């Protein structure tokens, strides 16, 4: 900390335009974090797998979907962070106070299941990424799990946030891998700008999968909690909005390059894959060993990153909704449910991944289905809350924000139902 200011100081008489800009930038850096981190955690093991599959099986056909997805993501995450800034409360707190204990309880059970499925996928991601580097999962998973647990229990939110922000930079490895492939840019551009829809079940399921993995229920809870924890004020909110926008664009740029990499190599050679590990391994002969390593490194980072946030976010949201003590700065006996839930999710997911023949694909699919069931409720609750003038005052949704919000939520709800119902067709 700097030397203490000596009062009285000469008054800063006129602030120039430039220094106003500087102040803006400073405020931006003080509120940056929640949006970018949430969006990047979104590119987790499940996300990378889905994007790899989309690229490998459908080539560039799904690239266009990233543009509407980005817009929808911005729209939804903006609403949730506005809720957080104005109310000062987390999302499950607001849902409990507004919709009562019953709905909250069952919603939280859904959230635990879907986040748990995601956590399993993250540890599986750690295992497969390290296997590409030749490390056994019986070593990498316990070490990764301990690292995650230790970082959160022993660190403070601020220091953890800094680690996470640095981790976001590692996603560049996917962009590097994509550029090294040297794709044909003009055709990419036209594929991105021209929507392409096939009315076939597996195409629609893939499309829904890409959307579902990018817009997931935990994200609203996490970003709102992070923004509340950061204590962002309403005067600073317009800077926090940029945090959300930058994050949402970043996540989709990374997704774009993952799809491109797989489309240019695996799709063109007609290789079918099932997991992100398959993708990385199949890349080696086609795009060179280093590209495969870049891919694997990105997967490792993404999995570790998401594995540290998902269990924490789950414990946080559930305890907040149920009114149990929360906080990484409390002792275990003071917040038993919080630590219990957090530790349990980490250890059970690790345990499942370490089983010799664990059904990763099935678990991930199940968690996607629960995802699809939980998301509509959360989005609808969010829309109701953000329109509550008693709660939001002048910051409630305007008419156009509502039109866009309702349209976006309706499409997402529809697609979620498609995904849930798809096995019956």
């Amino acid at each position, binding site marked *: *900390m700097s*030397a*203490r*200011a*000596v*009062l*009285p*100081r000469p*008054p*800063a008489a006129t602030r120039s335009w430039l220094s106003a800009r500087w102040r803006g930038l400073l405020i931006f850096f003080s509120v940056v974090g929640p949006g970018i981190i949430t969006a990047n955690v979104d590119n987790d093991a499940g996300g990378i797998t889905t994007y790899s599959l989309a690229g490998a099986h459908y080539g560039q056909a799904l690239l266009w979907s990233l543009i509407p997805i980005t817009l929808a993501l911005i729209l939804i995450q903006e609403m949730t962070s506005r809720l957080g800034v*104005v*109310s*000062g*409360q*987390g999302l499950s*707190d607001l849902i*409990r*106070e507004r919709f*009562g*204990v*019953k709905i909250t*309880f069952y919603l939280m059970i859904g959230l635990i299941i879907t986040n748990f499925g995601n956590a399993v996928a993250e540890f599986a991601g750690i295992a497969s990424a390290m296997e590409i580097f030749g490390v056994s999962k019986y070593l990498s998973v316990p070490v990764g799990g301990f690292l995650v647990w230790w970082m959160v229990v022993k660190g403070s939110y601020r220091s953890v946030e800094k680690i996470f922000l640095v981790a976001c930079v590692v996603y560049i490895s996917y962009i590097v891998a994509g550029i090294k492939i040297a794709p044909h840019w003009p055709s990419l551009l036209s594929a991105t700008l021209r929507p392409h829809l096939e009315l076939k079940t597996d195409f629609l399921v893939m499309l829904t999968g890409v959307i579902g993995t990018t817009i997931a229920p935990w994200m609203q809870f996490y970003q709102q909690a992070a923004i*509340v924890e950061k*204590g962002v004020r*309403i005067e600073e909110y317009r800077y926090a909005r940029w945090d959300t926008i930058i994050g949402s664009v970043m996540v989709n740029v990374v997704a774009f390059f993952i799809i491109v990499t797989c489309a240019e190599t695996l799709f063109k050679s007609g290789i079918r894959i099932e997991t992100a590990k398959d993708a990385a391994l199949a890349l080696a002969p086609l795009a060179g060993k280093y590209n495969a390593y870049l891919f694997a490194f990105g997967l490792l980072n993404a999995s570790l990153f998401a594995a540290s946030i998902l269990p924490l976010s789950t414990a946080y949201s559930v305890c907040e909704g*149920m*009114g*149990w*003590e929360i*906080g990484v*700065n409390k002792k275990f006996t003071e917040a038993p449910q919080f630590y219990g839930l957090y530790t349990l999710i980490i250890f059970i997911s690790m345990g499942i991944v370490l089983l010799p023949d664990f059904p990763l694909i099935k678990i991930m699919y199940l968690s996607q289905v629960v995802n699809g069931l939980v998301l509509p409720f959360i989005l609808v609750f969010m829309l109701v809350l953000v329109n509550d003038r*008693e*709660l*939001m*005052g*002048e*910051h409630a949704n305007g008419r156009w924000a509502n039109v866009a919000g309702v349209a976006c939520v309706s499409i997402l709800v529809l697609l979620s139902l498609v995904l849930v119902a798809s096995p019956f067709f």
Partner: protein
Amino acid sequence: MFVYLTELFAKNVRGADDRRLLGRPVDLIANAEELYPAVVGFMVRHGRRPPFYLPWSQIVSIENSEILVRGRPETPGDAAPPEGSLHARRHVLDRQIIDTFGARVVRVNDLHLLRMEESLRLIHVDVGASGLFRRLGWLPAVNALMRGLFDYQLREHLIAWKFVQPLGHFGRAGQRQVLRLSDSHKPLDQLHPAELAEVLEDLDIHKRQALFGSLTPEVAADALEQMDTEDQVDLIEGMGEEHATRVVGEMATDDAADLLSELEEEKAENILDGMETERSEEVRELLTHEEDTAGGIMTTDFVALKTNYTVDQTIAVLRQEAREAENVYYLYVLDELEHLVGVVTLRSLIVASPERRLADLMSTRVITVTTGEHRSAAAELFAKYRFRALPVVDESGVMKGIITIDDVLEHVAPELNR
């Protein structure tokens, strides 16, 4: 006879004479200004129709599965809950409250009411697992399961209303209203300032601000002294300047200086201008020292005496100043130019005969630090001599302030492993 709110909400409201169905209670209204709030009515809703107010006076009886009423409360009229009433749903149920008995923030699962002949009163709030399962409708099943499997009975976790501080509800965005309670209902008074600080830190920013703003300046200052600088700044910046000035004016000078140095210049300047001249000069003086020096952590709230005082006179002075001073165990003796010439302990003062002069009593070999020395030098002296307070002088030996053990602890504690 005790009854839970969940049980009341499950009853049908019917006309006493024609037994027509009027709906179900959706909210309970009680008189917040009583120590154990008496129920004054219910909000009742039938299907999708807007809820109507059912005053207590129109209730004939509360039966096992129904509430019988007279008259026609459902007809649209002027009947509305009295202003300032406690609304169970809006203020308490599913909301966070402060349990001042356990000194923590909890969420309310159910309310526990006592039915006496003519009245129904709110006695406890239920914050436990059994309340949660009762709300979910699983309590009998869970109880049977627990008894059958583990021979364990879920315990009730009830908190008496006198230990409950509700946190109000949101009015317009951010303007949380704190519910006006009975004058003898002051649960927060039971909290130690350190507990109050912890509870405040557990609340979200709006609740924290609202509750903090409702405290008296003395209580607020005590709590504020126990908080992190960052939270202090948030709270002070979030409140009106006048109130902020009063709160900072009640803080110990060293804590006030620490806080003001973190505030925006203009705000800090305004607060200083609003304070009593003598205090604000002391604080300004403290602000000139570097943060990591002895001068930066000292306080000016010490008891200063003159060599020619008698023991009697000294005790009279002490009676006046003890309230403000950080430490009354060591009394510092200064000459006309405010040089520190000796120190008298409270013990030696009490055992001495009343007419003796301080010059004879005081010990003249005083261990001091100078304002410019690093604060770790002070910490070392504390470790070596086991003092409770240490005088701080400037280069010429003029007494400037004292450092108490907690000032040192505050700066050393973050380095301890948590």
